[in-house]
Each structure stands twice: as C-alpha cells, then as structure tokens.
C-alpha cells in the first residue's frame, strides 16, 4: 500500500478525480465541527489540524529560507466568516531574535509574521494569527516561510542550527456560515459533493419505509458514482426512511413507493431528477431521483451518473437514455491500461506534477492501479521507458535520480554534468531551455512489488555546492522533470489468481471491479434489510466506484431467495448472520461462521512434509480434514468471508457480516483505515474495533486463465522431486526404446541384410 499522501496538495488537481489520491487519507474533521446538522443558519466553527491536512506529524523548516505549504479548501455553499491560525512550533535557540521570523502567506499574500528566537531554549511556543477571511478562495495555500539567521556574517545557509519545527497540532480555525444557493441541477454534484471539501463524504440517502430491491439497485448505482467522485475522501451514506435529515440528502422514490414527506407531491411522469430545498431545515438541498416505477428509477439513476453534465434547472425529466456499451474487463478508468504501454502523461492530471524544483525536491509521484490478478510469474519485470531532464548539476558525483516503487528503491541514476561545471555555471544556468538535459533509461520494476495500488516515485537530489568558509551561496534554481513521454508497460500478462483473497477486495474491490460497470456483480441483501445493511452496501459500492472511477451502472441487487439471479455472478453478500439466510444455507462452504454468539473457524491442514510437498501432494488446504474451533462469545465483531460461489464454480462470494447489524460498520471503519485494510487477506477476516485478523481457511479456487504451457509449468515448477521422477521414467522408456531399435538395426547389419 502507498503511504499517506498529503491530501491537501492533491486537491489542487482534483479535476482528475480518480487519480488524485491513492489512499483514504481524508482528513477527518472533529465530529462536532463536521456535523452539518448544527442549527442553521448560525455560524459553524471547524478546527483543521495540520497533521490531518498534510499527513505529517511535524513540518520541519530548514535552511535560511525553508518553507512549507498547507492546503485547504472551502465549500461552495459556505462562506468563511473568520479564519484564525493557531501556530504551535519549536524554534532553534541559536536563532537571532529580531532577524528570525516565520512569514505566513495565504495565497501568496503576507498575512502575518511570527517572530521567533525569543522563547526560552527547547520550549514550544504558540501564536495566534487572525487572517482576513476575504483572502480565502476555493483552494487555498497557506505558506509558512522560515527566515532564520544565527550569525551576522559568513552564514552557512545549511547550518544545522537553522531549524524550526511546526507542530502537526497547529490548527486553522475556520468559522463558516451557510450560503443560500439556487435549486439547480447545473451545479451537480455540488452541493451534495463538493470537491473543495476534503472531509469524508457523508451523504444521507432517504427511502420509503421498505425500499424495494430495484430502488436499492438505483441507490447503489448512485452510491458508487459518489464513491468515484469522493475518491480518497471516502464516502458513507446514512440511510433514513420516510423523513429527510437536516442538510443535504438524496431521495429515491417511485410513484408507488415514496417517503412520507413526499406523500403530497405530484406523481412524476417519467424518470425525473430534481433539486429541492430540504423541508427539514430549509437550508439543505435534496436531490430527488424519481420514476413512475422501479424501471424508471433505474433510468433516472443512470441518467444522473452518466449524463449529469447536461442537466440544468431545478427539475429534469429523462426522455431517453441510450444504454451505454458494456464495459470490457479490466478497463476501469482508474486502472492502468493492459492493452498498450501507458505514457506517464496519462497517469497524472497535469504535466506540472512531473516537474520539481529545488536541490532536494519532493518526489515525482505516479499512482498506478493494477488489477491484482495479473499473473507475473517469471516475468522479468514491467518495462519502464524513463526519460528525464534536469539542470546540469555542478557536482554530478553526488547528484542522482532514484526511482522507487512504494518507497522501495528500484534503481539510481547519476546525473551528469557534461559540458557544465565550475563556479560560473551556476549563474549562467538557463532554465527550461537547451540547458536542460534529456536522458533515456530503460529499467524494470521488480514485478513482485506490484500490489493493486502502487506508487512510482522519482526522487531527484542535487548536491549543494560548498566552496569554503564565507563563500557559500545557495540559489534554488535547480529543476528537474520526468518526461511525460516516458512510459510504463503492463500489457501481455495473463489474468490468473488463487482465490479467495480478501486483500484484493479490501484494496481494489476485486473481483467485482473486474467490470467497471459492475455488470457481473450481484449484491445480496437480507430479506428485509435494515438501515445498517443498506448503509454497508452503499459504502462498499462507493469503494468499488472509488477503485474503478466509474459508476456501477449495471449493478444488480437481489434477495437471498432469488437463486436464478445469483447464478453466474460474483456475489457481494451483506447482512448480519442470523438475518442473511444465504449464510445459513451455504454454511458448509463458509471458511468461518460468526452466527450469533457461536463462532467457528476452520483451520486448514498444515503443510508438513517438504519432500511430500515437492512431490506435488497435499499442497492445497483440505477442508475435509480441517479442524474446527467453536468459540462462544459476545461483543462487537464483524467479519468478511471469501469463498467460491456454491452456485457457479469460478465465481466469488464476498460476505460482509457481523454478529449484529449495527456492528457491520466495524467492517467499513476498518476498510477506511489503510493500516487495518492492509492486514486483510486470506478467506476470512475477523474485524474487531481497531483490530483485524485474517485467515486462509477452507477451499481455494482459481480464477482467470493461463496459456496452456504456463498452466502446465506453473504447478510443476514447485515440485522438482516429482519432475525428477518423471524425468527418470521418461529416460528409462526412451533408453529402452532406443535399446530395442538399435539392437534390431545392429542385428540386421551384422547379418548383412540390406
């Protein structure tokens, strides 16, 4: 998995939603500040901690002119009334008071000065700065520039005493007031999703008392769309019945089945999308997805997720919806292409992301989502055609480009100073012109490092020029760029994976996301789903959408009794054990069960004998002889189970279950935390609050196809002893055959026969 990504930097580039951030590192504001259900229209106060916004516990400032940037956004439907920066920091005691200070800039305008150097040594300090809220824009850059001096003359800009650390607990206190906006579909997805809001998307869905499966199906499509939009922020959809909550919400209704508050509204004449003010508070907006019947509702939902760009006005009736072409496997927009090499330019939102400035710049990062079932056995690696340019370094020997994948070094290249050098070169350095050098190197990413979510990192580092006492100069005029024309090639691999592997599901929603429109996915809810069941389903679908970057327009939802619908599909099973009847019916196939207080986990047979194993026997866990442990207990517990569909072989079932419906959210919480999600693998994952445990138990199966020769070699390659026996047998037969025929030939020759 990828490291936490400075989420706020990413917000600059949100126009390419899917690629912006690899992980659910969304800063979560304090619940009390985040809740939109505060009494309107009074101002709300939010506290944004630096550590949440940047993902760093400490923001270090070094050298004479060190700087750091914190990004934040402001929603379109809110007005910032007051902005206060509470800066907590620790400064070096060597700094000269009066000369040393931190300059605070908001969107490049100086908004405050923090003098440093007066505090007692080693003690933290804090200072509050009120910032004029009029300077706040949609996306904001709060820059802290460190002006540090430790001596009056002959200052070494790299001196180790030049430091100040900004604490991650520094915060921005933002007071906002809701802003009235029109009921207009033009703004979609705003105000329901605002990309300037870097918090998790919490968007209530409102249904009638007992929503039908078709309604849930339409809501699921919408949920996956919002999931794709929310991307790394994550999304939850609290389910409400009959009455809308305060704030923004999405309402699903047909003429026959509508929430109580719409009981008096006129019936719609077809698939309809409309925005109205929320009657619950008057300030929030409701997005109504309506139709005459469930079919209409589905059309309305698909029109919303596919055609929202063409909507305007407060209400739109969908006259005609052209069915989109079914998606091909593995063609999710967020995933790397498997049919041709990909240019780096395709992997980033703007070429600027491939360019860096400064002597030790931040890495150039490329996020790669790769189908987890790529079969890279015996591959020499994924070829990367790397081209890069840089200002000629003065000291080439210590300047280099390191290429890493997921923070593991792949290869380093020395940067050359051909034709350049000496003291004067630094001054004459031309930027962006012919002075930049281009080089091309072909390297291979070690294939074993490929998970489903990856980050390619290119770190340039240029050596500083240090010529002696009092002769230091430091000009940050160095820049480097990875060429957008570089390419990475994932084509040509077969798809083959041993299942169940819940890790695939946790990180990329596989195998459901194999088809980006979820055309092979059937979500199975209990007969009478609770709000928690529905909420879990929508959150999971949002995750699938986030993975693919495409709404699940062909998703199907079915009840446990509808066996015809369950055939020939990958099943996403939701529901606490006693209520989800399929879990009971298929209990023989389950790798584990947590029905009620009784919990059972089947242990696979251990591989005991090395030789036995290499002969090719006893490698797969055998459920028949597995031991079973029955555990009695209570307390919150959720589980995810993966197994082969009992109805169709080669199809997968992922069941998300819990001892009680309200504990299902444990699974969602765990999936949102990268550290926990990384611990999910195997066929059974038990989820406790703040803890997951994974097992591989029960039967395994494979999905995908290998070329026939690989299908032969792959299983044999682990069994050299067996193969040696086969070799001896073959050699014996052939030697014997040769002996027979040569003997016959020789006899004929000696007899003198022709």
């Amino acid at each position, binding site marked *: 998995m990828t490291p936490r990504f400075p989420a706020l930097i990413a917000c600059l580039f949100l126009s390419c939603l899917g690629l912006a951030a690899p992980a659910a590192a969304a800063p979560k504001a304090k619940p009390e500040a985040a809740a939109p259900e505060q009494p309107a229209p009074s101002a709300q106060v939010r506290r944004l901690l630096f550590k949440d916004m940047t993902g760093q516990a400490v923001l270090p400032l070094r050298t004479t002119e060190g700087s750091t940037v914190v990004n934040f956004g402001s929603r379109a439907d809110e007005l910032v009334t007051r902005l206060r920066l509470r800066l907590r920091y620790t400064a070096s005691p060597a700094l000269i008071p009066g000369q040393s200070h931190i300059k605070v800039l908001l969107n490049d305008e100086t908004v405050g000065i923090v003098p440093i150097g007066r505090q007692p040594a080693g003690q933290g300090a804090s200072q509050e700065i009120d910032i004029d809220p009029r300077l706040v824009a949609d996306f904001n850059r709060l820059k802290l520039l460190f002006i540090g001096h430790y001596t009056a003359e002959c200052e070494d800009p790299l001196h180790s005493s030049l430091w100040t650390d900004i604490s991650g607990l520094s915060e921005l206190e933002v007071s906002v007031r809701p802003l009235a906006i029109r009921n207009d579909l033009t703004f979609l997805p705003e105000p329901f999703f605002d990309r300037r809001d870097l918090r998790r998307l919490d968007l209530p869905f409102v249904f009638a008392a007992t929503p039908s499966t078709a309604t849930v199906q339409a809501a699921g499509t919408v949920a996956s769309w919002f999931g794709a939009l929310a991307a790394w922020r994550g999304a939850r959809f609290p389910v409400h019945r009959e009455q809308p909550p305060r704030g923004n919400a999405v309402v699903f209704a047909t003429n026959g089945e509508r929430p109580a508050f719409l009981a008096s509204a006129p019936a719609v004449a077809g698939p309809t999308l409309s925005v109205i003010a929320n009657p619950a508070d008057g300030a929030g907006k409701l997005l109504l997805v309506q139709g005459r019947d469930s079919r209409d509702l589905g059309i309305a939902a698909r029109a919303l997720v596919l055609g929202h760009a063409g909507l305007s006005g407060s209400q739109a009736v969908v006259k005609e919806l052209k069915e989109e072409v079914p998606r091909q496997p593995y063609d999710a927009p967020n995933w790397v292409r498997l049919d041709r090499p990909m240019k780096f330019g395709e992997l980033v939102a703007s070429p600027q992301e491939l360019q860096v400035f400064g002597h030790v710049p931040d890495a150039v990062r490329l996020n790669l989502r790769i189908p987890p079932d790529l079969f890279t056995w015996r591959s020499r690696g994924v070829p990367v055609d790397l081209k890069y340019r840089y200002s000629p370094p003065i000291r080439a020997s210590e300047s280099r480009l390191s290429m890493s994948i997921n923070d593991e070094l792949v290869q380093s290249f020395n940067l050359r100073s051909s034709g350049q050098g000496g003291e004067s070169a630094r001054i004459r350095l031309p930027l962006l012109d012919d002075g930049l050098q281009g080089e091309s190197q072909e390297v291979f990413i070690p294939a074993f490092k490929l998970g489903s979510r990856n980050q390619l990192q290119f770190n340039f580092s240029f050596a500083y020029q240090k010529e002696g006492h009092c002769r230091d100069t430091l000009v940050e005029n160095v820049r480097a760029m990875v060429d957008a024309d570089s390419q990475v090639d994932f084509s040509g691999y077969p798809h083959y994976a041993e299942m169940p592997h819940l890790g695939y599901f946790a990180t990329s929603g596989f195998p459901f996301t194999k088809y980006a429109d979820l055309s092979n996915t059937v979500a199975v809810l209990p007969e009478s789903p609770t709000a928690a069941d529905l909420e879990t389903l929508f959150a999971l679908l949002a995750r699938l959408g986030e993975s693919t970057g495409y709404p699940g327009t062909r998703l199907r939802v079915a009840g446990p009794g509808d066996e015809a619908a369950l055939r020939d599909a990958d099943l996403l099973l939701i529901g606490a054990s006693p209520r989800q009847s399929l879990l009971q019916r298929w209990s023989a196939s389950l790798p584990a069960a947590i029905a009620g207080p009784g919990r059972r986990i089947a242990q696979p047979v251990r591989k005991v004998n090395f030789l036995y194993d290499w002969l090719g026997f006893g490698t797969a866990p055998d459920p028949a002889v597995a031991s079973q442990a029955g555990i009695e207990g209570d307390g919150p517990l959720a589980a995810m189970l993966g197994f082969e569909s009992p109805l169709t072989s080669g199809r997968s079932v992922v069941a998300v279950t819990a001892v009680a419906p309200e504990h299902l959210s444990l699974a969602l919480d765990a999936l949102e935390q990268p550290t926990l999600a990384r611990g999910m693998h195997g066929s059974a994952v038990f989820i406790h609050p703040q803890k997951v445990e994974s097992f591989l138990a029960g039967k395994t199966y494979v999905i995908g196809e290998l070329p026939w020769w690989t299908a032969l070699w792959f299983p044999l390659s682990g069994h050299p002893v067996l193969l040696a026996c086969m070799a001896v047998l073959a050699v014996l037969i052939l030697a014997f*055959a040769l002996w027979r025929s040569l003997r016959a*030939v020789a006899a004929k020759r000696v007899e003198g026969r022709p």
Partner: protein
Amino acid sequence: MSAPADGWQRWLVAAGIEPGRPWPQRLAALVLRPPAAAGLATLAGLFPQVNFRRPRLADPLRILLQLLWLGLVRPPARRPAASCRPIPWRAPLAAIPARLARGWSRLEAAVGSQPGRLRRFAAAEGRLGFWDRAALRYAAYALAAILALLCISTPFSTLAQAVFVGLLWSIALVIRRVPGPVATLFLIVLSVTASSRYLWWRVSSTLNWDIAVDFLWGTVLLAAEVYTWLILVLGYFQTAWPLKRQPAPLPEDTSRWPGVDVFIPTYNEPLKVVKPTVFAAQGIDWPADKVNIYLLDDGRRDEFRHFAEEAGIGYIVRPDNRHAKAGNLNHALTRTSGEYIAIFDCDHIPTRSFLQMTMGWFLRDDKLALVQTPHHFFSPDPFERNLGLFRRVPNEGELFYGLIQDGNDLWNATFFCGSCAVIKRRPLEEIGGIAVETVTEDAHTALKLQRRGYNTAYISVPQAAGLATESLSAHIGQRIRWARGMAQIFRLDNPYLGKGLSLAQRICYSNAMLHFLNGGPRLVFLTAPLAFLLFHAYVIYAPALSVALYVLPHMVHASLTNSRMQGGHRHSFWAEVYETVLAWYIFRPTTVALFNPGKGKFNVTAKGGLVDRNYFDWGITWPYLALVLANLAGFAAGVGRLAWGPADEIPTTLLNLFWTGYNVLLLGAAISVASEARQVRLSHRVRLDLPAIVHLPGGKLLPCRTEDFSEGGAAFALPAEAAPALARDAEVVVSLWRGREEHAFPARVVAAADSRLRVRWELFDAEQERRLVQCTFARADAWVSWADGRHRDRPLAGLREVLAMGLTGYRRLAEHGAPLAAPLLGRVGPALRWSASLLPRWPATYRQETT
C-alpha cells in the same frame, strides 16, 4: 565430545599411545617407553614431514602447522580393521559423512554388480510381450516424450533446480556403474535431456533484449551453444551403438577369392618411406596370381621406377597431376582390371592379414562397395610428441577410428578415409571413379557410393600402420584440408539434400561435416567471458548461481556419458585441447568454403621428415598468444571488478573469472603443442614385444624378446643372468619369426648394458629389408595390443591433466620467449615443492590403519 579433547587424543594416537587408557597410563607410556622409541621415533611418527636428524630452517613452521592440523582436522574415514579395536573417540555424529560415503559406494557396487537382474528384466519384457503391442508401445513413447518435454521446459526456482539436477546427477552416478548398453543409452538420454533443458533455459530466459550489446553477444554465444548441442546430440546418435563388426571368413577354396589391385599412390615422399609399404604389400597373404601391386608415382621419379622394377611391382605414371591423389587413382583405374582395389597411402604399411580380414564381407554382401579399416600411426603426432602423451593418452584420430566409424557402420554410413581400405571396382566406376570435386575426395567418394545404394563396412582392427604428421604446422595443414573439404561437400553435395540416402546416413554424414565447423564456436567460447569482464555485457542474462545450476548439469552429464562411451578412445577434456589448437585455423577455410566451395587446393600431407631441433612455432601460435593476452586482460579487469566493482556483481565476476581462467589454461595447452620437441631418430621406434634369438659372435644363442624396433635397429630385453658383455660394433645375427618361418638379420651392437641390448641392422639387400618389414611391421598382430596398459579415462583426471598441460605451455612459452626469465621460472617448481613440504600430513599411525 568437545573438539579440543578430540584434538588432544589425535595427538596421542599419532604418537602411538592408546587414547582409551586412563590418564596416568598415558603419561607413563610417554615417559616410560624406551628413550629411542619415545624420542625420535615418536616424533618422526608425529611429524612425518620433518627430518629430525637433519633439521631445516622452516621446521618450526612445519611442526606448528602439523600440530594445528592434528588438533583440528578429523582423520580420513576408514573401515575399522578386524585387528584394530573400535576407536571410542569417534563420535557417532562425526561418522555420518563417512557412513554416507560408504553407503553410497555400496549402492554403486550393488547396482554395478547386478547386470543379471537387468538382463532378466529385459528377458521378462520379451516374454510378456508388452512392447510387442504397438499401441501400448507408442503410447509409452508418447508419454515419455511429453514427460521429457515437460522436464526440459518447466522453469524452476534456484532451489528447485538445485534439487532437480542433484537428483538426476546422483542417478547418473549410480547408473554409470551398471554395465551394458541399456545403461549407456540411459545416460545418453539423460544427458540429452539435461543439455536440452540448459538450452531451453538459455533461449527462454537468459537473453536480454533491452540492451543491444548484451543481446548481440548473447545471441552469438547462444548460436555457438546451439551448435555444440547439435554436435553433442548427433554425436550420441552416431556412436550410441558401435557395430563391432567381425571379419567374415573367406571360403576354403582360394580359387573363389577375387582378384585385388593394390594401389600405392605417391607424390613427393622419399623412397625410404615408400619402401616398407611396398615390401609389406608384397607380403600380404593372398593367392599370388590374384594380387597386383601398383606404385602410382605422381612425382615421376626414376628412382621409384627402378625400385618398382626391382621389387617386381607395377609402376604407373600419368602425364599431368590433375586432381592430385584422386586423379592419380582414377588414372590407375583405367590401366588395371582387378575386381577390387586396395588403397594404401605410401606410408601405410599393411599387415599380412589385411585382405583376409577385409575381403570376407564382399563375398557375403553383394552390394558392399567399401571396407575401411582404421588408420594406425606408430609415430607420435605433434600433440603426442610435444606433450609427451604418446601411447599414454589416446590420440586425436583414435576416437574417429575407434568409435565414430564403428558407430557409423551401424547406420551403414562408414566413409572412405583415403587409405587402408578396399573398394569394389564396379561401383567405383559407376560413380565415375574417386570424387574430384572436393579436397576430401575420400569422404565424398563414399557419399557418392552410398547415394547409389551401395553399402560400406568398417572393421575396427588396425590392419596397416603409418607415420603421423611430424610438425604442428603440417598437422594443422592436414586438418585445414579436411575441414575445407568437408565444408565443400556440405555445400556442393549436401547429405541432407539429394536422394539415395537413409535418414540415419544423412545424419551421420552431416555430423562428420558439421563437426569441422567447430572453429567459430570454439573461438566464441574462448572469448565470451571477455564480453562481461572487459565490456560489461551480460552475455548470459541471469544470476551467476542460476547459470552454474543450469550449465553444470549440461557439462557434467555430457562428460559422464562421453567418458563412458569414448573412454577407451578419447580421454575427457582432450577434445577441448585438439579443438582449441585447430579452432583459428579451420575457422577461416571452413567459412570461406561454405561461401565459396570452389576455392582451395589439395595439399599433400608431408611425412617422413624429422624435427631436428627444439623450437617454438611462433608463426602458428600468434592467434593463441593474442587470445591469451585478451583473456589475461579480461582476468585482470575481473580481479579489478572484484575489488572495486559493485558487490552484487561478485558472483558473476567470479563465474567469468573461472571461465576465463579455464580458457587461459586451455590456450596454454594449445601453446604447449606449438613448442616442437626435437625428434632425433630418422626412423621411428615402435615398442613391440616379439620373440627373438640373438646369435652372439661366439655362436651362442640368446633367446630374448624385442623391446622396440625400427627400420634402422632394434632393442632387446635380455634375461638378467644371461646378459653378455658385448663390445660396441660387435657383429650379431638376430632371428625373427614370420609365422613359422624364421628369418635371420645381421646387425651390429650399438650398446649393451643392464640387460638391454641395442643393435643396428646391417642389411645388405632389398630382400632382407622386405623380410624385416614382414617380420615386424607387417605382422598380423602387430598393432592389436597397442593400447594395452593405458589407464581408463577418468573425467576429473583428464581435466587435471589438461590444466597441468596448460601450465606447462606457459613455462615453455617463457623458456622460448624470454630465455632470461627461464631460470626464474625454473625455480617455480622447487618453490612449489618447498611450499608443499610445509603442509601437514597424516602420521604413519593413521596411514597404516587406512591401508
């Protein structure tokens, strides 16, 4: 049991004291033994490498090393002798390796002594008739083929590959002990499997397409390896089952024996060389009216005409010399009429039994057009002379005549070798006489005969003997001719094309021709490691360990199998030396001939000369010196890379250093051959054990046996008590036997000492010369026991010998190239011996027990 205690007790045992006794007794034994025994003798036993009576400077060092050695190293494993009581201090754990080794050798012995069981199995198979059901048989073959393909192609991790090859290797080591053809075939198939697996791995996973330089080098090396693989497999095919044809008996009635013309072509050889051949031919046992001997003199020399008249044989000359030897023979065909033609090069002295051994098959098989016998050489070729291998290690030609021709015979693909053969006139005339299109007229003639559907046969009994080439340059010249000729045939009359041949014949012929293209691949192997060491190209794009795990089985299995099949005719690794020497020289002509087969002329192999001084043939060696310099540069670069290069390249560097080191030694052996040793005698002495009687001047008869003889003289081993005091130049008469006939030859004593008598023949007429030849060189059994007393091939011993030869080469190079440095180099040997004297060794106590 702790190690130090072990060490202590070893010292006690070494000093002759029973370690099992209690401490006081041990001390007493040390002190109370008689001073002499406890003193010098004990010490001498403990330190066998130190002479305590004559202490030397480094003795303290020797004693120190010996003490350390005794204290730290376990004595060699041995069976407890019945007389010796079990030694208590051998921990059971420590004995495991020894037990394993013993178990292994027992297993090997058990398998090796069970040929009967295998035969019974084979017989049972026959009775059950399992294999007679074609469907079952082909199903089994198909299964085996599929399994073999899987075993060749399945990729493995390094560990799995190690296990796989380890198992196959162990099996090969066991099967090696099983006598009989099935085991040989098993080893062949196993070797082909291992080599194919290597090749598949090379093709599928070791080529680096990303870097052009690597790919280029890698492909060239791969091509060379494919060639080697092809030659290996074809070679197995050719020699899997030597026919070992026995001579067919002739009818009792000699009137039914056909007439034979014996052709002895000559061009520029001295009469001295031709004479014995003519004399021996006159002694061939065949009805006198049915054999005619012709001397075909392309040199048109009067001396020869006189000799022919004198000897009473035919003498044929022709106006021109077109097509050299082939033309000469074809011309003679028009002047003679014998039904069969026996051809001897003018230096090949036939034995009297030649025709009786070979003609039988003609009478049995009407389609038989050619019977070939081996070429045997009683003088050393340059390899044998310059490396001192004569009669000790099989020479270059022995593999061909001992095994390959015999193997070819199975497939009816024996070919004509220009001499020592009988050809039927009618088929020969049918194909227009001896082939003249190429410079290897002999092989081409056989090919043409076989295209016409005629058979050939080979009888692997030396029935004629001749002189090997004298100098390396002459030897190389001869091989160049062969190589060029074979390449010409490959182009002009490719055995794979055209009609009339069976598939097996095509394979055998093509192998004979392809074999001579080995120059290029050999040069590639000699330079391949330089690609990495000097140019940093990964020729084999794989980790060094994987390379070792794939290439070693390929080499080990091939070596084991070839050693078993060819051991009597070619010692392991010598082929490398032969090929290395020739590589450069045959590379050019074969390449030229492949592109332009019309180029090149026949060159006569010079024979009968002598090397009159020690010299170094710089002209011949310069390509090898260049290769050595390149390899040494590579070696130095490699050592540098070890020291300063990146750590992850060390294994690859080591592998390449090892390879280039081997190349350097191989080249050293090649250089060694170029250092021509002086050849003193005008006529070659042949070691032969014959009964003789020496008539001493006083009329005394001295029965004795010959040690060696030549055309000029002989040496006799005398019974020790009968050794007479003979003056130099004393006249004696020596009696030798030809069958039952006794012939006396006058001679003069050259030297007589230490039960050895050496004489010089004093023959006074041609008749005596004829008799002498017939009593010696032309004896029916003259060459049969030639290889007796030679040790059987052991691959590792062969390797050691070849590498030692490489070192010798450099010493000789230094002696000739930098005479000033020679004394310094002369010190190297003693210095090494002195260093070796420092090494610890097992005391007498242990050595007695082990023996």
